[in-house]
């Protein structure tokens, strides 16, 4: 009977109930999006770092990978030291540089990574062959579209270009062997990969035995943070960054962003709470005569309170469920816009749906709906029967 009466009250003013449910749905969608946004980048970044199974990155001391043009010297010596640690399984030194490709009488510039294709963790091959030969180059789709080349074409590639004299340095003919997707690259970034020794040869003595970055896989069961500490002790020229330290650094950089998301989420929750409280209070005020009569004919205060709370809960639950769909749709749309932002890795998602976080957020909203029903329920339950009836009679 309680549910029937609660439904009756909600159905009695359909338009108002629908508007309230939509209001709660918008608040729920906003709350969900803020929760997805607050945790999405962090989780997405973590997944990205773990995607190729490398646990530790080494960058020049005091920098982050590819944060500056600085390079790590003595690659061979460092590799030898690293191999003495039995917990280190694979070592992948990476050298970064700029490249210039002459195509259709134009100079097309981009970035290139010098890697060892057997242990690299920077890209995945989409078609063709990896850079197994010294004269091989693999490029991403953005660069491929710019140079208008096909797999098998020979490209004239240089690592330096002087626009005043229009002369190239470190020039070499390379064969385009594959199409690749760089995991950490932005959608609008022109990137290529060659063997590290090829890039060293093209750039000359300046980068001889140097690397921009080391990527390290640890043995299964080994603690990456312990290995990181060991590296920083034995190789003082590098900063060792494990996944946990990288996440901590990302957390630090995104902390204001996350705080903002949490504040907006809390505001959404509060708006939802106020909306339900207002609607149910207005409904109780309008039905004060009806409620007084129900009390007069013997309906208990507890049942009146329960009925009003149910009204708040129904609005909140229906609104929250609608908000779930609305929030996911909005997040998807906003993600597509933000992911296209220049300079961001295309694999990074701003909004990441994590069921537990989503259900917690929606649970919180429903709990606030219950709380929102408490005040009007208390009002309804404590209406003085005879006085209310007298007021109604006069009205």
């Amino acid at each position, binding site marked *: 009977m309680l549910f029937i009466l609660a439904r*009756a009250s909600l159905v009695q003013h359909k338009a108002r109930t629908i508007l309230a449910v939509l209001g709660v749905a918008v608040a729920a969608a906003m709350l969900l999006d803020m929760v997805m946004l607050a945790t999405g980048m962090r989780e997405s970044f973590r997944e990205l770092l773990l995607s190729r199974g490398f646990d530790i990155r080494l960058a020049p001391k005091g920098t982050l990978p590819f944060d500056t043009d600085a390079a790590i010297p003595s690659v061979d010596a460092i590799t030898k030291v690293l191999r003495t640690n039995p917990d280190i399984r694979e070592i992948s030194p990476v050298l970064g540089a700029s490249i210039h490709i002459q195509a259709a009488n134009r100079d097309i510039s981009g970035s290139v990574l010098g890697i060892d294709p057997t242990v690299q963790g920077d890209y995945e091959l989409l078609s063709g062959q990896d850079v197994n030969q010294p004269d091989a180059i693999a490029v991403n789709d953005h660069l491929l579209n710019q140079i208008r080349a096909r797999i098998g074409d020979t490209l004239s590639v240089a690592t330096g270009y002087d626009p005043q004299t229009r002369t190239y340095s470190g020039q070499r003919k390379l064969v385009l062997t594959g199409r690749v997707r760089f995991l950490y690259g932005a959608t609008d970034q022109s990137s290529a990969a060659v063997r590290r020794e090829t890039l060293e040869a093209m750039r000359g003595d300046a980068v001889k035995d140097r690397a921009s970055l080391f990527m390290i896989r640890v043995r299964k069961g080994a603690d990456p943070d312990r290995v990181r500490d060991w590296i920083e002790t034995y190789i003082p020229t590098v900063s060792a960054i494990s996944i946990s330290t990288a996440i901590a650094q990302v957390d630090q950089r995104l902390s204001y962003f996350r705080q903002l998301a949490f504040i907006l989420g809390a505001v959404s929750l509060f708006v939802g709470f106020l909306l339900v409280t207002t609607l149910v209070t207005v409904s109780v005020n309008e039905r004060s005569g009806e409620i007084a009569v129900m009390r007069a004919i013997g*309906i*208990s205060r507890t049942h009146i309170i329960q009925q009003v709370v149910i009204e708040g809960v129904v609005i909140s639950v229906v609104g929250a469920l609608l908000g779930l769909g609305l929030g996911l749709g909005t997040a998807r749309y906003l993600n597509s816009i933000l992911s296209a932002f220049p300079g961001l890795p295309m694999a990074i998602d701003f909004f990441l749906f994590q069921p537990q976080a989503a259900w917690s957020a929606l649970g919180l909203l429903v709990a606030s709906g219950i709380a929102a029903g408490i005040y009007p329920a208390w009002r309804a339950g404590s209406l003085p029967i*005879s006085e209310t009836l007298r007021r109604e*009679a006069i009205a």
Partner: protein
Amino acid sequence: MTEPVESTEVHLDRVIVSLRDVRRDYPLGDERVHALQGVSLDVDRGDYVAIVGPSGCGKSTLLNLIGVIDQPTSGTVEVNGKRVDQMGDWQATAFRLRNIGFVFQRFYLMPILSALENVALPMAEAGFTRDEQRERAAQLLSYVGLSHRERHRPSQLSGGEQQRVAIARALANRPGLLLADEPTGELDAQTGAEIISLFQRLNADGATIIVVTHDEDLANAARRKIHMRDGRIVDGAGQP
């Protein structure tokens, strides 16, 4: 006015409502309104009493005290053999549910419920099974002449029909006492006459009825008329 009688079994059995020196004051700003000023009254089981008087004389206040939806400032109120003037909310609600039927001027039916569901509402609260609710609600609607309107909602019923549904609802839990506050106040003369005749039939079938009214026809149909003025019974309290 009926002389106060010491509580005896015979008295309790015969008298269903007994008020002794009942006062009810309301605060109104800085002043106090004396709605009832020492009212004593006995109503016998099976009686049909009309309380009349000018507006503001305390008729509805008296009815509310008898109906246990208000409490006196002083004095005692006994209904169906129980002191009700100091009952807590929970006790008073349970008492009303089983012992008192209310009929109001504005019907106050639940707009989204059918006539049958409106009548069944107090029975659901009293713990009747769904089948029992349905069966008794149908019987009551038949009694008030609305068996053909069971599925209709209040908005689909005329004023007189709505009031008859409200009367059926008031009878749902077989109360010992039926209280009505201006039951014909919102009805035209013809429909009002139908309600008057329904009250007479109910009384003839054994129901104790107390009505508060300005309607002379309704008051004249009662077996006993009590006149009130300025919070006091001025005439009729002594007529058994």
